């Protein structure tokens, strides 16, 4: 019996397959560099050029990247997507269908597995070749299964679960396709879990509908609040360490960010609003709320959540991915400490090199905005 990835790629583990992905994604984050190398486009209708990172543009250099991307999309007739929010979620909810293959230049394409879509991350040169030829060759990876048993306690989230799971199992996942049986997680929690566990060296991840026999086992009921610790360079982000939040409790914070596909969806915003109700933002703590998509933003407006956040004293960012900021709303200054639901904690990810970044769940950031500490 084939695994998910074997079925979608049409080959057994270890075999070389050449496929024609259904959707190819480039954005203004990192993968725009592929545009510089592309001389032709095989299937423009499959190519999505997404503007979702530097929203609105924080530097003239960022505007130049957008201009390059826009001209590229217009020249070849590719889709150009802007003002929709984070590309992953826009494509996941609005474009791709189960059984399709999405290839992009990011780190979290495993999120597509939550909807039965195969998401693959590739390097910039590979992405450029793929766009030019429409084809992509790969060795089908082996699959590792995990059964998530039990249910999360109220004090923990899917993000905590992913961090805790990776702390124990990261090595076992390297270059593997991960299939996750998670009957107690909601659809949103599955998206959060997969987006994280696929970004630390795994080839991809997906959800399976039945428990696997030969599988890792992980008990959700034992999960406690976790943090991803600061790391040195972006290239080493996938090796960042995880720890129980209690080990860094009391760390003084200057700001918090609730956003991204791990914190800015309507489900996350509802949770944050419920946690902050009746609370008071600590003086000297800056809280950014970053709705993940435009649809989330509108929904949050209609449910009164944005108004509640405004009254709480939060700053509401434009819909998009604000987990890495060179210059723009939410940037951190010298020697400041940020707690974010974003997944980048490397030096300089959110501003100056001397700023320190911890990553944690919506619950943890919301609570920190009251106490001004982890």
């Amino acid at each position, binding site marked *: 019996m084939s695994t998910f990835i074997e079925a979608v790629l049409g080959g057994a583990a270890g075999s070389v397959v050449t496929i024609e992905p259904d959707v190819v994604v480039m954005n203004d984050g990192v993968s725009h560099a592929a545009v510089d190398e592309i001389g032709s486009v095989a299937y423009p209708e499959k190519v999505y050029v997404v503007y979702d990172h530097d929203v609105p543009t*924080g530097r003239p250099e960022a505007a130049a990247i957008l201009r390059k991307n826009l001209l590229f999309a217009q020249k070849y007739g590719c889709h150009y997507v802007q003002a929709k929010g984070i590309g992953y979620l826009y494509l996941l909810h609005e474009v791709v269908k189960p059984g399709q293959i999405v290839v992009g230049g990011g780190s979290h394409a495993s999120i597509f597995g939550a909807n039965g879509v195969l998401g693959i991350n590739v390097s910039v040169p590979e992405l450029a070749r793929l766009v030019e030829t429409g084809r992509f060759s790969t060795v089908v990876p082996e699959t590792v299964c995990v059964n998530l048993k039990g249910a999360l306690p109220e004090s923990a989230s899917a993000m905590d679960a992913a961090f805790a799971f990776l702390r124990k199992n990261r090595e076992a996942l390297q270059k593997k396709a991960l299939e996750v049986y998670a009957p107690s997680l909601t659809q949103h929690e599955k998206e959060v879990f997969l987006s994280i566990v696929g970004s630390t060296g795994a080839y991809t991840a997906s959800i399976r509908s039945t428990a696997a026999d030969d599988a890792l086992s992980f008990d959700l009921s034992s999960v406690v609040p976790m943090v991803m610790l600061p790391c040195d360079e972006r290239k080493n982000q996938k090796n960042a360490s995880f720890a129980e939040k209690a080990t860094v409790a009391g760390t003084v914070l200057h700001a918090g960010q609730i956003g991204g596909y791990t914190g800015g969806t309507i489900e996350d915003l509802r949770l944050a609003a419920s946690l902050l109700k009746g609370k008071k933002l600590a003086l000297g703590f800056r809280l950014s709320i970053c709705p993940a998509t435009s649809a989330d933003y509108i929904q949050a407006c209609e449910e009164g959540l944005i108004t509640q956040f405004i009254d709480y004293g939060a700053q509401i960012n434009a819909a998009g991915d604000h987990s890495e900021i060179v210059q723009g709303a939410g940037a951190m200054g010298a020697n400041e400490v940020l707690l974010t639901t974003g997944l980048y904690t490397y030096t300089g990810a959110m501003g100056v090199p001397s700023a320190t970044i911890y990553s944690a769940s919506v619950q943890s950031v919301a609570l920190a905005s009251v106490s001004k500490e982890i």
Partner: protein
Amino acid sequence: MDKVFNGKIWKFGNDIDTDTIIPGKRGTIPTIEEMKKYAFELLKPEFGSTVQPGDILVAGTNFGCGSSREQAATVLSHNGVRCIIAKSFARIFFRNAFNSGILLLTCDGIQDVCEGGDIVTVDVDAQTVSVNGKSFKVGAVPENLFNIVSNGGLIEDTKARMAAGLKKTEITPLTKEQCYKSGYTLAEKLLKRNAGKEHVQPGDIVITKPDMFMIHDIYTPYLLDTLEKMGATEIDDPDKVTIIFDHCMPTAVAKNDSAHYDAGLEIARRYGVKKLHIGEGICHTIMHEAGYAKPGEISTATDSHTTTYGGAGNFCSGIGTAEMAAALITGELWFKVPTAIKIVLNGHFKNGIMSKDVILRVLGDIKADGGQYKSMEFTGPAAHEMSMEQRFTVANMALEAGAKCGLFEADEKTAEYYGIPLSEIDWIRVDEDAHYERVLTYDVSELEPQLSCPQGVDNVHPIHEVLGTKIDEVYLGSCTNGSIEDLEVAANIVKGKQVAPGMRFVVVPATNTVFKQAIERGYIKTFIEAGAVISHPCCGLCCGMPYGLMTDDERILLTANRNFIGRQGTKKTLSYLSSPAVAAATAIAGVITDPRA
């Protein structure tokens, strides 16, 4: 300071704005010593590294126009510039320069006979400047201002006053009945009321006790530093002080903004300021929205667009940080009574025409220095037809003509906005027998949409001359046009439509109150559905902060108040200013579009 001295010339042209002296994006560098390297970086990039102590700047008209940023003066001072000779100076820069210890001399003629690198000789007592064998007369320097320069600037001057024991000026404000006395301009009425003078005339120096002092976060580190240098342990009246975090909040320029945030909190803590607005929107809108700047009163702030509240008949004018520090300590501020221009607005506004079109037309007619040192006073049926928000737009941009203030009469709308009886403020009216040095009359019924075109606010063209110009980004917001009325106009135009392919449309409500109203009324949803992105209320791209910065050869259309070179991106970015109606129509079409079409 010697009264006769020489210096090597750096030569400049007309309308050198403060963004040119020190770009807005450098304005949040925490230390002047670091910032001074970037003086004139776009115009004369060699200046910062080669200027020598004692060098003298020679320029044309309106030197130092634009923003109130005191750093424009202090970077020059810290670069060793001790004297600037120009045909005329912008009002706030004039105050800031003297307060920074720079001698300003007005002279028309030397510009034609000198070049950069020539040596000029200044004789203060003889009131002459000489270069290349030719001498020219210069304007007299008031003794009190020369003393500030001689003392090394306002900080040292204030320290000396504090050491001598501050002597408060005894002032009894005029009664309401005394305010009805006819024959005065609005500026004269407002100043004489606060100063307790039964009669004033242009040129008089009056000591006032402002009713509200506003500080915004772009200057908090420098203000805190100046207060410390002056040795201030307390300020005159903390209840009269408001601190608003809007330029650097949300923190966006990583290496700078948190320092401004921290300094703002520290000023509040140290001096007992309770009126704090952290990330709640733009200072000038909050000042009238929260009722801090009231009709008939005097306000001042560390920002050039302090003129905004003149829309409610509040005398308000911007000052620099050193002057703010001194004023916070003493509770007093001197003003020179300005001459005035009366602008009579007749007719009725037609659909698609807004007050922004009126003020842009006025700016196009009188140019960036046409209101220099003056009070621009708006009256006539169309002025009263304007809502309060529309009046604030006009008063806000009066500054772009160099005006000391832009004032409207108080009427029923003013009274309703502030929830006070009209009978309390109806003395704020234009007297027919007042002396105005100039009267301009417009029929707004005949007006078409107006745009400030690259690169200067007074490069104004009617829309038919620029129709069809491709635009890459539209920015709807700012203290000029970020009100709920402005958002309503724009939302009605974009509702059910999509922005042009590739068009970046950035919407920034002026304040949290406006933001929440826009959510409640569905405007935010309308904008997002049309393809806009929404940023949190702040000054944003209007002041060059990272909320939609542009690259070379891109064109942006803003509802903001300035389109100086480099302000919204690079020095090759082209910026247009317009009303919200034009902005919305342009966002949909992708080219400059007449909203009446």
